[in-house]
């Protein structure tokens, strides 16, 4: 048990160090950063703000990690967020009860995931291409649902999903932390995580070993759709309206970035949900840090690009091959 814990510590150490460095740098530039206060029965402060604003990307990163671990990718999550947000806002405006609205919107997310999963697993279409279809058509569907308007609502129960408090924390934080814990327990306390990794490393071999790869792949895309639906609900509840054009725009890229920052290879295989969640927080900390440090937000994308490049260099098979060669020659005097 101690060995697994130590291995896990080593696995997420780079992400934790990066997060600590980013937060420390913000702390140096902006000394008031760590002030946390309690007001109106909830914690306030920049760190809490990072946790709160990072919620959509963190939720997407959970599903995206599992999809990427199977060797796939889900480009449609941003569009699925828009669809589910649009459905939720329209239903609540039409007078449906909150549980029915939530159930139907999450169901729509599952359906989107099922569609992607069937295209990838049953028809054998490349994941980038298969999810591209929903990415292109999804925003059109969302606009069809809202009839091209920005649907606003004033339902307090629903709005509290995005801006309410639970256990002294903003509700979105509680939602993504719970989803993260639940997903980690499900994949790591059962053999599910190992099977997903097996499919990602070699789908054919895993099928020969008796893994139902097809069902597994459909399931991970459905989980990704469900996570996207939750993220869409939070965004919609937060702004109290469904914006089919801009809800979740480019968040698929942030989610993929979070997974890559979390050290999961885009080629599939070994994954760590917790590292991806830390990755999501790193991205949000950089976003917030650029804002509180007084840099113009325009620098945000350039800095992100530099981070991606740095990670690419570190993760590159060419470089890892060289490092392996180096350590081998060192080991054999």
């Amino acid at each position: 048990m101690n060995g697994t814990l130590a291995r896990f510590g080593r696995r997420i150490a780079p992400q934790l160090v990066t997060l600590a460095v980013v937060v420390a740098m913000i702390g140096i530039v902006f000394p008031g950063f760590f002030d946390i206060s309690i007001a109106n029965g909830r914690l306030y402060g920049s760190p809490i703000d990072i946790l709160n604003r990072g919620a959509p990307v963190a939720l997407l990163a959970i599903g995206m990690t599992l999809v990427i671990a199977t060797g796939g990718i889900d480009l449609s999550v941003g569009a699925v967020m828009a669809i589910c947000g649009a459905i939720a806002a329209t239903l609540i405006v039409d007078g449906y009860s909150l549980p029915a609205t939530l159930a139907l919107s999450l169901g729509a997310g599952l359906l989107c995931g099922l569609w992607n999963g069937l295209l990838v697993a049953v028809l054998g279409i490349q994941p980038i291409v298969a999810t591209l279809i929903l990415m292109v058509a999804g925003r059109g569907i969302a606009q069809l649902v809202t009839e091209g308007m920005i649907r606003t609502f004033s339902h307090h129960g629903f709005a509290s999903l995005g801006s309410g408090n639970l256990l002294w924390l903003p509700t979105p934080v509680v939602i993504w932390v719970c989803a993260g814990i639940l997903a980690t327990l499900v994949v790591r306390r059962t053999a599910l995580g190992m099977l997903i990794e097996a499919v990602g490393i070699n789908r054919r071999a895993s099928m020969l070993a008796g893994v139902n790869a097809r069902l597994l792949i459909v399931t991970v895309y459905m989980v990704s759709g469900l996570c996207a639906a939750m993220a869409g609900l939070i965004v919609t509840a937060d702004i109290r309206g469904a914006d089919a054009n801009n809800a979740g725009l480019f968040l698929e890229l942030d989610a993929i970035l979070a997974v890559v920052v979390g050290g999961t290879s885009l080629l599939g295989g070994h994954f760590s949900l917790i590292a991806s969640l830390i990755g999501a927080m790193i991205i949000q900390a950089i976003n917030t840090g650029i804002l509180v440090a007084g840099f113009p937000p325009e620098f945000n994308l350039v800095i992100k690009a530099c981070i991606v490049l740095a990670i690419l260099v570190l993760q590159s098979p060419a470089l890892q091959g060289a490092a392996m060669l180096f350590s081998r020659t060192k080991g054999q005097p």
Partner: protein
Amino acid sequence: MNPRLLPLAVTVLIFVVAYAVCYAQFPAMLSTRVIGNLLTDNAFLGIAAVGMTFVIISGGIDLSVGSVIAFTGVFITVMLRDTSLHPLAVFAILLGLTTLFGAAMGMIIHVLRMPPFIVTLAGMFLARGLAYILSVDSVPITHPFYEWLQSLYWLLPGKGRLTLIGGLMLLVFAFGILLAHRTRFGANVFALGGGVQTARLMGVPVARTTVAIYALSGFLAGLSGIVFSLYTSAGYSLAAVGVELDAIAAVVIGGTLLTGGSGFVAGTLIGVLIMGLIQTYIIFDGTLSSWWTKIVIGALLLVFIMLQKGLLSLADRRRSLRASGNT
């Protein structure tokens, strides 16, 4: 018939049928005015899609196109506003920059052996970020040379106008067709898409070809940005969001395999025109909303991907049949 030609044939058929349906409803659709506008309105997309066709045939993808177009527009406006350089000199500097940008991405893809998807994603962030840094506002371009360029057109019979940018797109397509199907570089691109290892064994210079493909895509994205700035007379860092997706969709609808190794530059032109036709129809109709464009394009994408999938499995089956017949 060669099964590789079937996707192209289907694309042409869909285009002709769609145009016939539009013509039956609105006879004005066939006028050269509408055709001229179709070319002008989609010129920037078409030029970018030619570069994307090469990238996709080689088995890669380039997500940076839309951002490069936005960067181009902002770069031109800022240069024209703050320096006294002639627009032609600015164009030359800019095309050099975007070509280098593409070449750098190709270099990273080859040297680090990383998926093109994530490398060009970084390029997308970088180009859009640089555009933001240059200017956040939408800046209009007011230069006599620009106005002169915009006023150029060739009068078609029936009062239609083939504008400079529409004509430029057709020229780029002609150049792309020759480059892809009639030169050694084109053959190398197809070989690379068929499999890197095989291509290397065949003696294809993999490094040089990969860098050249992305440099070409960068160059054409820059050219597309110039056309876009001529079309809108402004530079805006938030412009052309998602153009890379439209370009990919046009390439796929044009019959190019997304797995690489097979495709047609001419098909991409028809793919672009089909997408333009959908928009024109929606404008003519007046009651349909513009979001139908996205849904129809999504549906077309699905149809073509399924068609390609079916053809591939058919070819596989034929090959295995032939193999079993030989033994």
